[in-house]
């Protein structure tokens, strides 16, 4: 449904995308995951015809994003990163406006947006600028869907939205997927990766890996331990000094460490830490999450 090949894009000196290729299948919920400044927005803007790639090509629904951009614009639903509706128009006026712009009416495609729109309909007289963050996102999504697009592209829809609204938002995306809409969504939140069918990890204009969330973590070769002690700061320093430890990153109340080889055991490491006066030591081997994989891939990439 969406296919990008070797896309490069620079803004002056800054290289935003350095040869990005990806393929999104029809009906898929595809996640584009990476930190701020990784190139997510640039890639998305190229795919929705807002920017031209410097090199490479991309098609959405077999339409070229540069040559067939007019036709393509009728078939894409796009929700930009920041709130891009008219704050001085009411909820209903925003909806009506975007419906008219796409040559349709709210009634015609009401079935598509019904689930979402019903939640904000009680406030339809309210100006969009006075809605809460979560409701703004719902309205923006409704507006992006009003013309029944085949492909829905969302740029960081959950950034700055509270945890409950985020969860609701992903449930809505799942429901839309069931209606047959192909969805490409970008997010800086690693924990949202598990909600996608497949994810692409992007960093510094390069795609690090593309796979299902399960495979991404399964393919992770390194052994991962979660470590904690009373003095976390010293703990990081001492672990980094240990010759068998490859990486140390803080993950909430634990440190996640990867090992160079399998020669050291948890007990050996505990002994090592005890010798350096650490107390309350806990070491548990764990399954890696997306975030661990991301850190690992980033490290490899940088080297």
């Amino acid at each position, binding site marked *: 449904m969406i296919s990008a090949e070797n896309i490069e894009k620079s803004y002056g000196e800054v290289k935003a995308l350095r040869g990005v290729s990806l393929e999104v299948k029809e009906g898929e919920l595809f996640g584009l995951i990476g930190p701020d400044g990784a190139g997510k927005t640039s890639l998305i*803007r190229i795919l*929705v*015809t*807002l*920017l*031209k790639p410097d090199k490479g090509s991309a098609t959405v629904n077999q339409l070229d994003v540069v040559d067939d*951009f*007019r036709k393509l*614009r*009728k078939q*894409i639903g*796009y929700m*930009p990163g*920041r*709130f*891009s*509706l*008219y*704050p*001085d*128009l009411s909820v209903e*006026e925003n909806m*009506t*406006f*975007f419906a*008219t*712009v*796409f*040559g349709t009416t709210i009634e015609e495609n009401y079935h598509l947006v019904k689930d979402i729109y019903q939640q904000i309909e009680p406030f339809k007289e309210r100006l969009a600028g006075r809605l809460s963050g979560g409701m703004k996102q719902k309205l923006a999504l409704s*507006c992006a869907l009003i013309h029944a697009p085949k492909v829905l592209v969302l740029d960081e829809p959950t950034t700055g939205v509270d945890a409950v609204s985020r969860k609701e938002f992903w449930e809505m995306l799942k429901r839309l997927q069931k209606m047959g809409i192909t969805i490409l969504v970008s997010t800086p939140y690693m924990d949202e990766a598990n909600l996608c069918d497949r994810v692409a990890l992007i960093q510094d204009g390069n795609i690090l890996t593309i796979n299902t969330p399960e495979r991404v973590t399964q393919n992770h070769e390194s052994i991962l331990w979660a470590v904690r002690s009373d003095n976390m700061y010293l703990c990081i320093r001492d672990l980094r000094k240990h010759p068998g430890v490859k990486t140390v990153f803080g993950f909430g109340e634990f440190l996640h460490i990867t090992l160079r080889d399998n020669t050291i055991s948890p007990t050996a490491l505990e002994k090592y830490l005890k010798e350096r006066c650490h107390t309350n030591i806990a070491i548990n081997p764990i399954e890696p999450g997306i975030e661990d994989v991301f850190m690992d891939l980033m490290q490899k990439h940088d080297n």
Partner: protein
Amino acid sequence: MKQLRGFIRKEFHHIFRDSRTMLILFGIPIIQLLLFGYVITTEIKDARIAILDKSHDEVTREITHKLLSSGYFRLDAMLDNEGQIDNIFRQGNIKEVVVFEQNFGKKLERDGKADVQVITDASDPNTAQLLSNYTNAIVQDYLQKKFVNYKIPLEIKPQVRMLFNESLMGAFTYVPGTMALILILISAMMTSITIVREKEMGTMEILLVSPLKSHHIIIGKVAPYLILSILNALIIIGMGYLIFGVPVRGSFILLMFVVIVYILLALSLGILISTISDSQVKAMFVSVMILMLPTILLSGFIYPIDNMPVALQVFSNIMPARWFIEAVKAVMLKGVGTGYIWKQILIMTGMTILFLGISVKKFKLRLE
């Protein structure tokens, strides 16, 4: 078509819901017209003068009475000697002192000649010039009537008539000028700001991704301001007529045609500005710098173009307001027909086409 209607409806919502926009659209034109009409005036009314009458005879009293009853002058002080003149000017309250020499009336009867000295405060040279002319005219007029049977030497007396504006009313020039200024401000500045606002707020991203064509976006943005600007022009013409008595001597339809041509020109300029600005502040700055000040200074609105240095005279040719003011004055005050102003209309149309052409070329279908 339906898309366009929806777009225009949205645009009206933006305008009517923003009190600042409403103020600029309807408050400023009225205030500006009143200000220009009443405050910046070149007419003389109730100028304060002092009189030093060394003669105190019937003739000087009558001339003094004539001066003060003309409506142009108001007596501030009667002076006793020349020493006071300097001082009273320094105080700054009075604009003119009229000095009658001793035995004024007797000399006049005996020699047919007497001296009256008119001293004006020329720190404001235009006013000083006007005051002395008015005084001179009143004195001459008096003498003519008084000594109608007297054998005065044969002289040629010019009869001056001020055509199209007999009483030299300032409002006659300020109404067309204000209209030129306000229409260009509203049309060009407001449209450029409203287009750039969509870019700044990110809504342009969605509009671009939608099937809307660029001319839909532009027409949708501009159409409301065309309607509101026409309304504004009607308000200004109406106020000019009712408050300042500025007539529309020519065809009203022709006048409105000129107004609409000028509005379209200003709108195209606004679109052009919007394509080169990426923030509302920049659009506003560009509009004020390249439109407002030159329109006031170089269009012949306040200062006659003929008096400018040659370089500025040439430059005034590219001021849209210059051609508009010429055409509007011709229709409103001289009552001429299309035959006399086709040149101005043609120039404005040409400018519009040029600006639109550049805008269409520069309008971005993408974000870069």
